[in-house]
């Protein structure tokens, strides 16, 4: 039962599910994601209720630049793919390739964050501040919550990489890789909704 029954070298095929502790963590994390769905669902609901209340500020149609947001979307979607590659490498017990894919994932996450910060700064210059209107408050809260999740994910995955370096790929570190990948996919799915509901609907149905 204890974590070190499996030394590195004879890992099971799915090292992330080898111990009860790990299975608990994965299940618990699914439940946590369930809670996150409600969290973002409520944020979306608030945004949808307030998105036309622009007051004197700019409207969604005036603000959003779809090409850039589309680029950010592609970056984040790709990072989801690279985290899948990392988990696959883990299943093949290929530590080096796993770590490489994780690093690529982080870099893509950072690129996304960079674009988002640039975007927010740009909006503020155009008079779309946090306090401008109900639309702006709910926009920054929703998109900002997502951005904070991405930032948290970047730090988290970096810590996981550090641990894999220190302790190797074991039945203790494997679930960490796996769970951080689950989290990363979740953030990605949320972004797909943000892209649709906030940006596309803002431009097209605005």
């Amino acid at each position: 039962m204890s974590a070190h029954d499996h030394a590195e070298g004879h890992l099971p095929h799915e090292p992330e599910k080898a111990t009860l502790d790990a299975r608990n963590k994965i299940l618990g994390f699914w439940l946590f994601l369930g809670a996150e769905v409600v969290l973002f669902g409520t944020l979306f609901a608030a945004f949808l209720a307030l998105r036309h209340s622009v007051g004197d500020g700019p409207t969604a149609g005036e603000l959003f630049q779809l090409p850039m947001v589309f680029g950010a979307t592609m970056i984040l979607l790709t990072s989801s793919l690279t985290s899948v590659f990392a988990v696959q490498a883990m299943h093949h017990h290929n530590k080096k390739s796993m770590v490489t894919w994780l690093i690529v994932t982080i870099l893509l996450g950072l690129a996304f964050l960079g674009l988002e910060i640039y975007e927010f700064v740009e909006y503020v210059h155009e008079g779309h501040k946090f306090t401008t209107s109900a639309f702006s408050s709910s926009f920054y809260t929703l998109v900002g919550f997502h951005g904070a999740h991405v930032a948290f994910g970047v730090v988290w995955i970096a810590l996981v990489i550090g641990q894999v370096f220190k302790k190797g790929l074991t039945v203790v570190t494997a679930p960490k890789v796996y769970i951080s990948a689950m989290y990363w996919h979740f953030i990605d799915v949320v972004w797909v909704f943000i892209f649709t509901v906030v940006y596309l609907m803002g431009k097209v149905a605005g």
Partner: protein
Amino acid sequence: MAAAHAHGHKVKRYSGLMDWLTTVDHKKIGILYFIAGFFFFLIGGLEAIIIRIQLLKPMNDVVAGDTFNELITMHGTTMIFLAAMPLLFALMNAVIPLQIGARDVAFPFLNSLGFWTFFFGGVLLNLSWFAGAVPDAGWTSYVPLAGSIYSSGHGVDYYVLGLQIAGIGTLLGGINFMATIINMRAPGLTFMRLPMFTWAIFITSALIVFAFPALTVGLVALMFDRLFNANFFDVANGGNGVLWEHIFWVFGHPEVYILILPAFGIISEVVSTFSRKRLFGYSSMVFATVLIAFLGFMVWAHHMFTTGLGPVANGLFSIATMLIAVPTGVKIFNWLFTLWGGSIRFTTANLFAIGFIPTFVMGGVTGVMLASAPADYQYHDTYFVVAHFHYVIVGGLILGIFAGLHYWWPKMFGRILNETLGKITFWTFFIGFHLTFFVQHFLGLLGMPRRVYTYLGGQGYDDMNFISTIGAILMGIGTIVFLINIFVTWAKPRNASNDPWEDGRSLEWTIPSPPPEYNFKQTPLVRGYDAWWKEKMEGKTAMTPAEPVGSIHMPSPSILPFIMSVGLFIAGFGFMYDQLIVAGVGLAITLGCMVVRSLVDDHGFHIEPEEQDKGVQA
């Protein structure tokens, strides 16, 4: 397992205060929840008594109007979030792992973190009394009243931040107990063999997981409005006040079922044990619980009938609300049929359970009355609503908690509570309760609005308010008797047997009271519903073990949860008083602890068979 103990990690074991601050043992955490929850229950009770004394007679001036507003706000908030929920968490922690034959919960560390965040959130909220800025916009904190224009002081900030921090703890608890019940059941303990209390907690946890995040968002939005000039609820800038009502009640109605479902579970256990009968209609009980939880998410707008959502919305929510009465009725009849023909023992626990049944029925009936939208235009914001929710919460949940505490006390502490004092508690509390709240139905029907700090004489309110206050004092006396009982029992020797009621039916009654640190020396094999009763009926004196005696792995204690919660507590103050640096430091402490937790592996430690025989007591 045996091979693993060669690694025999030595872990520092703490004693005294440090033991309680660092414990990850669900039994100790249960006791902590009980102490903290009961403490807040006393504070909330004191506030209630002051409210009732102010309303004792017309034009009374014991407290001023603004103090009165603070009292009702803090009373409601404290009772729901800091007393009722933690007392339920106390029983969950004390009982659930034992009922499913597990050695602990799925996430012992998070369990401790959940307790400490709740505790510090509660402390933060109550420090408002000393800061002289007390929340006063009602436990529902409707905007614009709770917005920065009408509540310009820091009062509502205490509400927002205190609840936010305490809410984290609750959410963690919900996730933890769901995972525990899904993954940690003993061999043979299938879902349809789970004790009813475990089922109730399973569904309650699901409700917590899906309802609390809505509150989180609502509180964040209100906090942003108040502290950072956001415009979520600021109508002048395009915000929407009704949005707050929706968010609050999308959380709030499931919340009332989070409160009552565990009580349903407790009553099922107590009634079945003390009638010496299998719970009548077990599968219909399970089904009813699931259905109530499901419907509980679709009725929130019954709190908003008078907001003006229109006849279609009101009609739909009205019907959905009335539907809940059906599965609730199923439960009531099942309890009655369980009692029917049983050899009933009127222990204190069972008195509370039997008192619960008619009392809760009355609360349900007024609920259905309120569910009729046109009628609600008459009842809304009157004492009729106050009577309704006190019948379901005090007459339901609190009677249920008292039943559970008397029933499981020997399992938690190794001593049976004094039955004579217990019966005095029951009768004073029960009679006091009905005196207090029965008349409030009629006060409401006569038109007395809720949340008013006084009233003019001669409107027919005077006598009933007087009676109501007398009842409240009687309830206070009942609570004090319970407190005395705790101390009296404390002084007695710890001599409760494994199965002190002799009629125990589920696994918690197969192990010592209180159980050893690891609960079960050998994981039991479950062969049916009412696992222990079944074995007893076949003449066995113990469960069949599902594993040989061996070394038992335990998680190590940790101070991190405590420090993390302190960090959030500091951050809360930082945000409130616009000291963003302080807030940053607080958050950094919390995040830093998370990093430490992630980097440093917890190997835990082992308890060897020899030590097990010495009996390591919790």
